[in-house]
């Protein structure tokens, strides 16, 4: 299979993730978009590994997955904490640090 197809898919996924990160209002959707970005990156890494027959990228992909897991747990914990305070998951209502 042409590795370029994988790269294209990964690129599209990444852009979609960025869109969700910037333009969505709900905190959880934003976190999901971050996951999407990370997965896109993983796909890119694996595609390049296949292209260059290099094992290092596979290892990096594993690192990224572990990192994504940790980061999403922490992120969800923060969202829960803020929700308990503000009773809303709308990111626009969380301008506590204004000024």
């Amino acid at each position: 299979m042409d590795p370029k197809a994988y790269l294209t898919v990964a690129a599209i996924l990444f852009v979609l993730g960025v869109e969700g990160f910037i333009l969505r209002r709900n905190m959880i959707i934003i976190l999901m978009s971050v996951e999407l970005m990370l997965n896109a990156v993983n796909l890119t890494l694996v595609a390049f590994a296949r292209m260059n027959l290099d094992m290092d990228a596979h290892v990096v992909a594993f690192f990224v997955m572990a990192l994504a897991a940790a980061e999403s747990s922490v992120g969800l914990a923060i969202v829960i904490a803020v929700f308990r305070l503000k009773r809303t998951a709308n990111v626009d209502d969380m301008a506590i640090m204004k000024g």
Partner: protein
Amino acid sequence: METGIIALIPFLVLLGAVFNGTIALLHAHDEETPDCKVTWIGCFAPILSFIFSCWSFCKVKGGAILTCYLYNWFTAGDAGSAVAIDFALRVDELTSVMLLVVTGVGSLIHIYSMGYMHGDKGYARFYAYLNLFMFFMLMLVMGDSMVVLFLGWEGVGLASYLLISFWWEDGYKADCGKKAFIVNRIGDLGFLLGMFALFSVFGTLNIHGVKKDSPSLHESVTAQAAKIENRDVFRPNADPEIVPHGVFKGWRYANVFTLAALLLFLGACGKSAQIPLFVWLPDAMAGPTPVSALIHAATMVTAGVYMVARMGFLYSQSTAAMAVVACVGALTALIAASMGLVQNDIKKVLAYSTVSQLGFMFIAVGVGAYSTGIFHLFTHAFFKACLFLGAGSVIHGMHHEQDIRKMGGLKEFMPHTYWTFLLSSIAIAGIFPFAGFFSKDHIMLMAFSSNTLGHLGKFLWGVAFIAAGMTAFYMFRLVFLTFHGQCRAERKVQHHIHESPFSMVSVLWLLAIGSVLVGLFGRHHGDPFGAYVDQAVHGHEAHPSGSLALLMAVASVLWALAWILAAKHFYLDNPEKPKEVAEEYDQAYQLLNEKFYVDTLYDGGIVQPIWAAAKGFLFKIVDVKVIDGVINALGVFVRLVGEILRIFHTGAVRTYVAFLLFGAIVFMWLMVS
């Protein structure tokens, strides 16, 4: 002869100062201060120094010159033309005499202070300062380099300030200390400029040089002077020697000598209270009397005379400078004596007397008779210290009354004080065979028969003669008003008048006996003093004929006796006469009383404008508006920057996300390109 023992002379006293200073600091807030310990340390240090000074005197008399090279203070300049300023001490004949005076009279005054300052809260501090003063004075007279001399010069000024404003809780006394220090500083400017001139032309500041082959001013100046064929500074091209490089490039050496000598003399005017910088000395009487005796009579104020004698090799090269020195001395002698005629504070009379006698010393060194000037310094130390300490005894006995109009008849109450004061007064008036006669008469003789100054010398003799008459008059005015006649003090004060304790009276007697006997070292007995000191300073002494000397001696004594009788007439026999004369010549009296309006002149012409400039301009504008303005502007600037940065802190997460993305894109773009 290189010996470390002479280093002990100043450093023992410094140690005493440090000890007493520590005691003073440690017990600053206590009720009980360990006065006994302080006295032992404070008095023993100068006494030990005196013993070592005697030892060095004996050694120097035997022909040696004692030196002590301590260390290389600093070396300035690049490798090729480096100049080493050494911290070295050198005792020759002149220095050994000064050492004896400073440590000897100093020790006596330290002992006197035991009784005078008894019970004072700052007892330890007093002894610390007094020892510190002695250290600096010893540095001054023993220093071989002009830099070490200047260290001592400045240090004695500092000690003088500390001691004059010893009772600084009184604002007036603190101001007197400030005045002394500031006026001294003006003189120091001249001294510094003179040092710079000498350094610039000769490349060294050692006076005689302690180590072998080290450059010295003495050598350089005498060598250069020997090349000058014609000393007439008004004829151009007469001096073939021109300074080759430096600031004074193109100058003739003769003119450099004159300039340096005059500048150094300006320093001496400040330190030794000559016109125009004498105004601090009468106000310096605000300090405790032992201070007045030690610093403003026997030692510090004589530093100027010492300096001129020490740099005699320089002054001898410049007739103009010598004339200036002698004229200023004569003028000061006359004017100060005239001001002393009308003072009513016992210490102020003595202060003006000191200024006047210093004028005499400068007449002597001005005509080239350096050893004569130093001899007068020597005798003056004795009788002036005795007079001041006697005045202190009177003040002590009268419970701090200093106005002689409120005294009188004290000779019954305080016989020891009276007799010592009288002996010293006879000495200062210049009556044969007391010490003052020998020294003062010698000065007048030298001035009259000076070869260097010719007719000017005779004029100066005239001025000095009048001043000597006035000296006799005001001294005996003081004696008669204070000790004779009816006691004008109030009844209740009279009951408490008492003679001073043994520690004070013994010192008075020692000094009085000194002022009677030390004349024996003078001219009329073979002049051992003069011959001894001349080996160091090589003065240009005239050699007047014996008959002239005898005539002058007789004239001086008769003149002084006449004025003493005049004083007796005015103040003993007809007590109302002085007031009548004052009213009749009231303008002249006012002039003298207001000290020729010199203080008023300085105040109006110099002090007030400086105050106005400081308050009106420097404070209100420079300090408040400019300096504070800059600091405040800095603060305002920081706040403005903060205000700008605040715009970015919206608190909205989405804005932050946008910035994050923007930054990431820029970063990636930079990585790629």
